[in-house]
């Protein structure tokens, strides 16, 4: 129960309304430091909306999202401007429909991800344009880091190719590598295994496990592929119609009647029966 003892991200009473539509309704959950947390639920349950709230693309209607940094300080993500969430709070994300810089090479994609530290070392461009300061060495280090992630995702051979030329599975891995180049504490992955074949999805599992182990990055992922969810996650949060219906270890969640009902659909009689059992 690491997510209760040492939470990295604490989401409390998160509500997001779009006009009359309540996409997320009073959602509270915690993401443990060093955990792989899966956010699952049927289509339209509001999972991506939760991601957009956490990563600053939406401002939540109500509730707070607290990020507990390793030094003990708290950052309220819903109050930060969108671009500080990655830079200050160290939360990185990938997208459900891959968003790479398709006309730029793989290496350039990973260097764009290191924009903020490079900007500092180039003296906000003023020193860099005159060739002063430590920009040269900083860029070399940035390239080394990019090389490391390209090797890790087995894309190093195509480092000088445009990202748009890559096959689908490679693009997914490149997006993860790009997000990791920002040195995140929390990496949010929106359906990383979508469209991958079983071999690729196994490879993805290993990549995610090694990210957690070697880099101390906690992961929050939305996933429909249960082989990924059940194998690697420590903690599963289940959403349905914007409400949390289950929260626990994968084995607990798997046997939860409400989760089964949400996923499989049941007769009205059975719903009453289940409701009677769990006492709603």
């Amino acid at each position, binding site marked *: 129960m690491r997510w209760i003892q040492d939470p990295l991200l604490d989401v409390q009473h998160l509500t997001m309304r779009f006009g009359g539509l309540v996409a997320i309704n009073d959602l509270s959950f915690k993401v443990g430091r060093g955990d792989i947390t899966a956010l699952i639920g049927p289509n339209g349950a509001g999972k991506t909306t939760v991601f957009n709230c956490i*990563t*600053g*693309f939406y401002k939540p209607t109500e509730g707070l999202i607290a990020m507990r940094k390793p030094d003990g300080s708290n950052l309220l993500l819903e109050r930060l401007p*969108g*671009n*500080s*969430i*990655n*830079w200050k709070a160290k939360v*990185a*994300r990938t*997208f459900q429909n891959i*968003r*790479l*810089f*398709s*006309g*730029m*090479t793989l*290496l*350039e994609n990973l*260097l*764009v*991800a*290191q*924009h*903020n530290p*490079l*900007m500092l070392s*180039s003296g906000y*461009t003023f020193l*860099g*344009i005159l060739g002063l300061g430590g*920009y040269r060495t900083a*860029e070399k280090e940035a*390239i080394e880091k990019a*090389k490391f992630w390209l090797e890790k995702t087995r894309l*190093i051979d195509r*480092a*000088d*190719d*445009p990202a*748009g*030329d890559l096959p689908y599975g490679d693009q997914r891995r490149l997006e993860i590598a*790009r*997000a990791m180049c*920002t040195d995140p504490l929390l990496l949010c992955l929106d359906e990383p295994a979508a469209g991958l074949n079983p071999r690729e999805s196994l490879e993805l599992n290993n990549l995610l496990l090694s990210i957690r182990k070697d880099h101390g990055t906690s992961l929050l992922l939305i996933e429909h592929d249960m082989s990924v969810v059940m194998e690697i996650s420590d903690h599963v949060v289940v959403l349905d119609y914007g409400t949390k219906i289950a929260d626990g270890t994968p084995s607990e969640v798997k046997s939860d009647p409400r989760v089964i009902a949400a996923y499989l659909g049941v007769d009205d009689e059975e719903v009453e029966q289940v409701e009677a059992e769990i006492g709603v």
Partner: protein
Amino acid sequence: MNAPPITTASAESPALPNRFDLTAAIKDGLKTALIMLGLSIPILAYKTDQSGGDLWLSPRWGLVAILCALVFGLRILLHAFMATKAAREATPSPHQATEFVHAEPNAFQKTSRFAIPFFLGVALAFPVIIYFIQGGLNESRYWVDLGILILTYVMLGWGLNIVVGLAGLLDLGYVAFYAVGAYSYALLSTTFGLSFWICLPLAGILAGFWGMILGFPVLRLRGDYLAIVTLAFGEIIRLVLINWTDLTNGGAGISSIPRATFFGLPFTSGEGGFAQTFGLEFNGMHRIIFLYYLILALALLTNFVTMRLRKLPVGRAWEALREDEIACRSLGINTTNVKLTAFAIGAMFGGFAGSFFAVRQGFVSPESFNFLESAIILAIVVLGGMGSQIGVAIAAIVLVGGPEILRNLTFLQAVFGSGFDPNEYRLLLFGAGMVAMMVWRPRGLISERSPTVILKERKAISGSLVKEGHG
């Protein structure tokens, strides 16, 4: 249910409908000729002739017949062309779909290694070359002036290339910054007597400042909306220049702007002038040649700074912004700042070019900064290939130099008769050229993007992968 075997179906008959069908083509040709005939009757068939007070119709059925036959022939040719094209496209080449697309450098890229030093050499030696061809300083005046004009547009194109080509923000009001630069120099020098070399950076800074002012309201806009607001901004600046008569002298403009000096030495014939100090015989062309090298230096500075910025984080952020703004935000890039720097730096170079314009002309008026100027600069960037420096330079030479060259094509009179004035067909040919460009190279002369950083080998990135930005 037995589905037809897929493998044999394709082997049977190679794509029949793509073959050239002569009877159908003739039928269609006749139809088109008939339409032509119908249109000809009210337009071409009769000509009114006048002699004194009399007015009568003279029939021209011969001309009508010739034109109808021409249309018939062209229509059949078009059919034949389309049929061969369709057939070629229907037969896939063996490379297609089996190999992944290599981003091989194309002919332009291969030649650019030699072309860039060549162009640079020609640009540097241009006044000398013209001097020897024309055989005298005064005779070469027209050509050096043309060189200055082209280089001004090269510089403006490179400046706008930062905003449109790199950052992907469509700016239809770029001429506003050109105007700000020109009026900055005109007003500062006539009012405070500041020299050109002090006014040049000031004009750049002021134009950059106006770039930021334009940047703020358009931060949230994209596509057509961005284009409209920038267009309006350009017009607002021009209208302010016309109507703020106290400051700008209105439509009459500002005249007798101090001329450029050779770092303090005026180009005059008297004591202490440029010619006397260097022991030369006084000639008005000294100033023109100096202006030529001045604009060449300014243009090269623009190019150098842009090339440098592309390799810095801010330049990569511009290109990333053009590719995908949302991904930029998710990576912690402050897109507001990125957009504002693109507007400000692009505007700054426009301001430099503007103050050069003022010092060259010695006179500025709002008429020089109308929408057509913006359109030409944008056309240079788009035709050159967005983001490509050398492409923009070539496009500037073609678009600005081309019409001037046309003026001198007197040999065409031998072909079309002595009444033929090529100058009258300038805009027609210009338009036809643009349409042809957009058909054959829709993404500009040089559409390939060159990566800013490489690990092992430099590969050009095909233009089809590079996005145009949000507008």
